[in-house]
């Protein structure tokens, strides 16, 4: 090293990276106010009622259908909480849990709970889908035209996996990015399998979203309150160059599925720093 040698590179602090990214996304979004069909009053009766209603929609296409007692809300309005058979977890309060993931990704421990910016983010509770294996929960920031989705199905109990789908702005056009998916390795090293999930706002004119996976499996996304949601646990892993095709609004796209839609993971116990989901 000599007098002309700069210090080594550093990472942008994770919470700053995310905040700047969010501001940029807001800046580049189309200027019009959102006219998204989702409205808070729809769920004004309480998150539990909203979730229950949406979950019933999900029962028609997801494992753990109407006959599955474990998937029903308990009489006191809380939800089944505990590990599922495949190791996922079902948060007792999916909305609070998803808020927690978001807090961990945006706010440092020092900023919680007094960060005034956080006070300015009144997120509305969006639709959710729930089975004994996990919950997909959507939160919406109508003011900033952003949305987020959390999925507890894979790795939520590990404290390091993000399961946070960092949504893009509302409304969306009917293009492949609208159907971007998140995925995770499941199974074992000997028998790797692939779990894929995604959620997002449904563009105008689209009332059905169908995914065809590389193994030939076809899964119709559940469409509810202006959002689509899909999950699929494949029996095998997919090659890196495999395509997941999505049909929506009379068009067909290759849905991105190998990108990070999660940016930060939750703060694990004993750690001061939100974890990048790339561990």
């Amino acid at each position, binding site marked *: 090293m000599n007098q002309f040698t700069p*210090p080594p590179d550093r990472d942008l602090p994770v919470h700053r990276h995310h905040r700047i990214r969010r501001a940029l996304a807001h*800046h580049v979004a189309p200027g019009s106010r959102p006219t998204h069909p989702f409205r808070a009053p729809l769920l004004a009766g309480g998150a539990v009622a909203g979730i229950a209603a949406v979950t019933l929609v999900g029962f028609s296409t997801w494992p753990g259908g109407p006959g599955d007692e474990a998937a029903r809300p308990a009489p006191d309005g809380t939800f089944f909480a505990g590990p599922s058979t495949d190791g996922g977890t079902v948060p007792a309060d999916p909305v609070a849990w998803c808020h927690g993931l978001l807090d961990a990704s945006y706010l440092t421990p020092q900023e919680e709970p007094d960060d005034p910016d956080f006070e300015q983010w009144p997120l509305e509770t969006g639709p959710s889908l729930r089975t004994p294996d996990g919950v997909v929960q959507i939160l919406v920031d109508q003011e900033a035209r952003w949305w987020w989705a959390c999925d507890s199905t894979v*790795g939520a109990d590990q404290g390091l996996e993000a399961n946070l789908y960092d949504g893009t*702005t509302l409304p969306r056009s009917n293009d492949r990015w609208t159907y971007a998916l*998140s995925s995770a*390795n499941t199974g074992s090293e000997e028998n790797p399998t692939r779990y894929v999930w995604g959620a997002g706002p449904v563009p105008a004119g689209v009332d059905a979203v169908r995914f065809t996976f590389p193994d030939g499996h076809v899964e119709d996304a559940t469409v509810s309150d202006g959002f689509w949601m899909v999950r699929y646990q494949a029996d095998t892993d997919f090659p*890196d160059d495999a395509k997941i095709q999505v049909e929506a609004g009379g068009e067909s796209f290759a849905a991105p599925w190998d990108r990070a839609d999660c940016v930060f993971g939750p703060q694990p116990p*004993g750690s001061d720093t939100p974890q990048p989901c790339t*561990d």
Partner: protein
Amino acid sequence: MTGPRRGMRRRRELDPALRTQQGMETMEGVATVDTGPQSDERLWAEVEHGSGAAFGVVFDRHAKAIYNHCFRRVASWEAAEDLMSVTFLEAWRLRGRARMVDGSVLPWLYGIATNVCRNQRRSHWRYRRLLSQLNADVAAPDHAADVASRVDDQRRMAEVRVAIRQLPRGEREVVELVLWAGLDYASAAVALDIPIGTVRSRLSRARNRLVGTLSGLEETEES
């Protein structure tokens, strides 16, 4: 800290930013980038059509490089954040004029960053509202050790800036891009919008001046 469960990790490739940054190995001054399905070229085609999502991926991929480049220009991590933000805002504004080098938009982004750093006041004014929003909530979240090491970085970089000030601006900018950021000559030429031969000659002159300075210092210290 409990590690992730074996076999339950997210795909490492999920983070294109990390993937590309890690895969961007500079060997003898030649930067290579991933030109696969998620190449900058393809992403930028979508950016040109107004895709904020594709732009977000480009940001994830190159934010760190631009952040560090800006830091080396101004010797302040905080200012580097602003300049990096402005660089991407400018990239969006000028997205129709992007130039690729071997499928990468990074050299062009370096060029924007260089201009932004040259004209900081104008850059800040253009985006003052957004920058004030970004900075309105800046707490001091970092650990004391991290803060201290960042302060050390800034002191160190300020010294480097003083040392390199002896170079004419043109040579200085080539040093910043080729020697510090690791761009190859062709990429630096695109970034600075000058012929590749000029990059070579400026770097050669800069090296001669710096070597002379180092020698002089060593002699002074020995005496």
